[in-house]
């Protein structure tokens, strides 16, 4: 795929945000908050970084993306559709009976997905396995894995955090969407995860900390991770839950709630009106 300019990516991010609120509104349920906080991370990844062929989803040399926090599949479905994995119109079938766009990703239903997810904490291990296979097969593909901050409370993440550096998996790039909110409130209050960068550093990861809504920083982080050898990299992306829709921003209640008709209209106006 031809890399997009920063300006184009910004415009695409608006479309992706609009998709997220439209899809969840149409479904009457879903997870807009954490989807909106990951928009720049996944738009930059799918359009400018991830080496994949929508027309050949099982191309053996493709880069892999594992969505560990499966509930934010609206953002993933949107970037998949907008990079050509399936028609954009299909996005509106999210969570409906018979849809390939299940409420949490089902790899058997939708080509282009790499794994099923929804039960948290499992993605990084899968990413490690794919990365280890790349090393064994002398393949140069890279593996990306998006995790939520609350998700880091799952013990399996830290098992996997030990495995990647142990096996020298520098082809793994973990991404933490650090919006500091989870269902029951602020991560710091529910179950603190700080000092986060130090945790990953002490597990022998290369840590890159960025503003997860600044596309230039996001792209630079992916590049830095790709160039860092002998250690896996983790991008800790500081983000805002619900980013781009003022009434959803920093409100835990929008973790798993769909906008109604009026809220949708207001959201779309904000997304396309004032920029982000």
């Amino acid at each position: 795929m031809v890399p997009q300019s920063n300006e184009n990516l910004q415009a695409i991010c608006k479309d992706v945000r609009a998709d997220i609120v439209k899809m969840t509104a149409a479904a009457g349920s879903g997870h807009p908050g954490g989807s909106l906080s990951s928009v720049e991370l996944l738009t930059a990844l799918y359009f400018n970084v991830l080496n994949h062929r929508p027309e050949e989803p099982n191309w053996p040399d493709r880069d892999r993306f594992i969505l560990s926090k499966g509930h934010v599949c609206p953002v993933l479905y949107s970037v998949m559709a907008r990079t050509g994995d399936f028609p954009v119109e299909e996005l509106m079938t999210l969570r409906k009976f018979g849809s390939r766009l299940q409420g949490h990703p089902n790899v058997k239903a939708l080509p282009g997905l790499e794994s099923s997810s929804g039960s948290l904490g499992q993605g990084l291990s899968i990413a490690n396995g794919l990365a280890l296979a790349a090393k064994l097969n002398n393949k140069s593909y890279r593996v990306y894995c998006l995790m939520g901050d609350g998700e880091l409370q799952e013990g399996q993440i830290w098992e996997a955090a030990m495995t990647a550096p142990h096996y020298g998996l520098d082809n793994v790039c973990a991404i933490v969407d650090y919006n500091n909110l989870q269902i029951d409130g602020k991560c710091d209050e529910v179950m603190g995860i700080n000092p986060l960068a130090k945790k990953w550093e002490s597990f022998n990861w290369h840590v890159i900390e960025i503003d997860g809504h600044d596309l230039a920083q996001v792209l630079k982080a992916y590049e830095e991770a790709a160039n860092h050898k002998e250690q896996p990299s983790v991008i800790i992306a500081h983000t805002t839950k619900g980013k781009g829709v003022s009434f959803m921003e920093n409100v835990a209640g929008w973790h798993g709630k769909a906008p109604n008709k009026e809220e949708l209209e207001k959201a779309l106006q904000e997304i396309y009106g004032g920029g982000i």
Partner: protein
Amino acid sequence: MSVKKLPNRDGYGHGLIELGKSNPDVLVLDADLAKSTRSDWFQKEFPDRFFDLGIAEQDMLGTAAGLALAGKIPFVTTYGVFVAGRAWDQIRTTICYAGINVKIAGAHGGVSVGPDGATHQALEDIALMRVLPGMTVVVPCDAIEAKKATISVAEINGPCYLRFAREATPVFTKEEDFFQIGKANVLNDGSDVTIIACGPIVYESLLAAEQLQKEGISTRVINMHTIKPLDEEVILKAALETGAIVTAEEHQIFGGLGGAVAEVLAKNNPTPMEMIGVKDTFGESGTPEELAEKYELTSNDIVKAVKNVLSRKKD
């Protein structure tokens, strides 16, 4: 009758080595129990294809899933309690829901694990694994069958669970015996009653049949090595022809082989049944013999169960 004894996990070790030679995609993962599970036999032969994931079963299952997604055939190995219980959600969501080709070996099934006690004696693993959509569940009866089962699951494209035992138990099947996953073996024909068993207790079932024969009771013995997919045909045929069934397994009486057989019979041809198994309790420390006695898993207990079921048999 004197018979050679081996732990059936040895068969797993031999099977892995054979697979290692014939299929370069076969890998083995363990969680710090390689010596006990026999996966270290593979490690010695193929060090570059063996990975210890440390004491981290959940991560091991996920890593195996990733390897399988990239075309490898990973065999993950640890004790049955730690894999089927502790990593159950990883097996459900990551592996079975996606139909990923991961082979899971649970060693140390049953109270015959002995002195380690209840925490290490898998008694619920068959139930936990067979309830998962798309999972194949195989419980070999001896070391020879364990080797065949290990080699056979590599040919299936999808998740499989293999259950092994710790103790040395009689090796009574032969290399040349027919073995096919999903196809039960009738070891002893009989017309009065049928014992359906899996794992090393199949041997006890044969001893029971021998005893019963002396008392004039003709007993069919079926080695139901595959719990899922279950050979329903052989069960229904036995129900029709013998009219009474006893199941035997070193597992909770709920949800395992007995449960699976009962489901088939209840739906198709309700037949008097008795179940040999651990009766809704945990195990404890002791010698395998002491525990088999206490938990009523010996050939004598099977004989008693047969007599009970015969008393309930319909005319």
